[in-house]
């Protein structure tokens, strides 16, 4: 059954090519091809997930060559989870693009290419192959960000391209150093060879530093996040929903894959300074992201900075390198993708219905768009970490992992992030519901506007339901992830 893996990567790319060709003949066909492509992708992802969670890791050797020489595709619990999120969010957000401005075939070709690239990053077992898929994802993302025909989005797209390419090139240089140190590029092989080459050797340390910095740029952690706010704010709403949910998530998955499959946990025990640096940089990103988010006036820029802070949390969890923190990081990675996507979708619906884009324009919106503001508030509180939602469960495991590791400062920062996230969401919720002016006095008043459900709003509501269900189902997911964690931690 290991044929599903290459299919999950090739099919979206083939669909993208088909979309271009059919697009020449019939202009409208772009959306339908994208629908078919992402629907099939969801089926494949679920197939892979059931297979992986059924009986452990599955691998596929491209072109029949055994691993050290050939490229190997691998799917374990972590990658199956991220792949399912990519497929489902890719499929759902497509409904979002239907409603909004009519897109040309080039947009849907780029959309499918992005889904294909993300699937590639998630499934690849070869380090250089991960660079190629990261670049494919990046390329599609740059084009999609610039697809809104305003000057601002072109400038943001160019800035994203330049900084993203530097990140990918650093990643490539890191891969080069690892290749020079060991002579192989396959991840499983590398973990053994790197240990043989000695973790403290200068070459291996340099490769680790370069790879992690490159991916940090891709995830937009604090010092190197400058491309993200402008890119998310100026992209069309459907694109910023898709990209905020998936692109950084895939890059964060890539860091987890490298920390646990390539450099494995022994690297951190051999080089504790590397672990401390990564953990403290991530914690700094949590604090700085939240502070910057509070300063923003434009909603989408605020949500972009909130992503910087939340991914700081995820990377800190992965860097703590114990099982509970890893589980927390994975749950928050998946949960954050759904929450942030839902938030951007809700912000988009509010913008369309009321034209409000900045925090001040959000005054008194509860009457005009009751359901959209309702979903924005609930998703905001979920991200803050108010229980039954998935935000709380992720934070609980990460905090428990940090405490078990004895890293008290990080545990404090993680728990403090609740208040920091609250700082910028309470501000918006207060304006939405308790507005600026005092409404008129009416006797025994019956209030509340007439709610209407558009397809875009349905997506935001679906995100809310998903967040609650994932919150309650987290322990089931933890049991599913058990075998993968045993394998990754080499128990």
């Amino acid at each position, binding site marked *: 059954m290991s044929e599903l893996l290459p299919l999950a990567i090739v099919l979206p790319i083939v669909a993208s090519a088909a979309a271009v060709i059919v697009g020449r003949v019939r202009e409208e066909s772009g959306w339908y091809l994208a629908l078919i492509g992402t629907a099939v992708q969801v089926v494949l992802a679920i197939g892979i997930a059931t297979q992986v969670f059924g009986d452990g890791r599955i691998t596929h050797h491209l072109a029949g060559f055994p691993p050290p020489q050939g490229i190997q595709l691998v799917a374990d619990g972590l990658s199956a989870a991220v792949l399912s999120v990519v497929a489902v969010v890719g499929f759902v957000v497509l409904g979002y693009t239907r409603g909004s401005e009519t897109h040309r075939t080039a947009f849907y070709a780029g959309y499918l290419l992005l889904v294909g690239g993300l699937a590639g990053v998630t499934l690849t077992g070869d380090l*250089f192959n991960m*660079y*190629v898929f990261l*670049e494919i994802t990046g*390329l599609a993302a*740059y*084009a999609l960000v*610039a697809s809104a025909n*305003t*000057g*601002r989005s*072109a*400038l943001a*797209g*160019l800035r994203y*391209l*330049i900084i993203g*390419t*530097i990140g990918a*090139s650093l990643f*490539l*240089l890191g891969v*080069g150093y690892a*290749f*020079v140190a060991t002579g192989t*590029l396959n991840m499983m092989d590398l973990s053994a060879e790197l240990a043989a080459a000695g973790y403290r050797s200068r070459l291996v340390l340099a490769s680790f530093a370069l790879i992690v910095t490159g991916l940090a740029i891709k995830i937009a952690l604090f010092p190197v996040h400058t491309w993200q706010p402008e890119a998310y704010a100026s992209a069309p709403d459907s694109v910023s929903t898709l990209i905020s949910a998936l692109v950084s998530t895939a890059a964060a998955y890539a860091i987890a894959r490298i920390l646990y499959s390539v450099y494995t946990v022994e690297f951190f025990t051999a080089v504790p300074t590397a672990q401390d640096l990564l953990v403290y940089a991530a914690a700094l990103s949590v604090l700085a992201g939240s502070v910057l988010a509070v300063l923003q006036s434009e909603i989408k820029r605020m949500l972009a900075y909130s992503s910087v802070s939340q991914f700081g949390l995820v990377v800190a969890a992965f860097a703590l390198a114990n099982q509970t923190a890893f589980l927390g990081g994975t749950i928050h990675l998946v949960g954050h993708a759904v929450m942030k996507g839902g938030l951007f979708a809700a912000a988009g619906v509010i913008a369309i219905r009321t034209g409000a884009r900045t925090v001040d324009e959000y005054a008194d919106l509860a009457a005009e768009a009751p359901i959209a503001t309702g979903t924005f508030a609930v998703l905001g509180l979920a991200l803050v970490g108010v229980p039954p939602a998935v935000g709380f469960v992720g934070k609980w495991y990460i905090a428990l992992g940090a405490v078990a590791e004895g890293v008290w400062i990080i545990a404090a920062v993680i728990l403090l992030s609740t208040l920091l996230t609250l700082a910028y969401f309470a501000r918006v919720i207060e304006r939405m519901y308790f507005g600026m002016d005092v409404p008129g006095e009416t006797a025994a008043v019956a209030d509340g506007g007439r709610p209407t459900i558009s397809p875009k709003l349905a997506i935001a509501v679906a995100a809310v339901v998903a967040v609650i269900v994932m919150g309650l189902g987290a322990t089931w997911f933890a049991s599913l992830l058990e075998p993968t964690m045993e394998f990754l931690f080499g128990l």
Partner: protein
Amino acid sequence: MIDLILTRYHYIAAILLLAIGLYMLIAIKNLVAKVIGLNIFQTGIFLFFITTGMVTGGAPPLLGPHAEGPFVSPLPHVLILTAIVVGVSLTAVALTLIVRIYAEYGSLREDIIREVRANE
């Protein structure tokens, strides 16, 4: 120190290219020059990769009836082939965006664009 330079000169060249590329990206205001800087930065990395494949006295990696002896490792070459195509497509997309920016703001210099946007 001298023998270090004599034996490791290709690494030094690669690092120099990286430095020049980064400097151009950061210091020069013109957008097209930035993209050129980006290309130089990537060329530095390609140079680093290709030179790692060198085996002194190695024969070109072609299997033929009378090929023998140590071969130059072909793997870096293959990798860099893909990386070059990725680099080219990135440059192409960047230039297309620059065309749009020029059409929108009428200038290629980053500081002038910032002024134009500031008083928009």
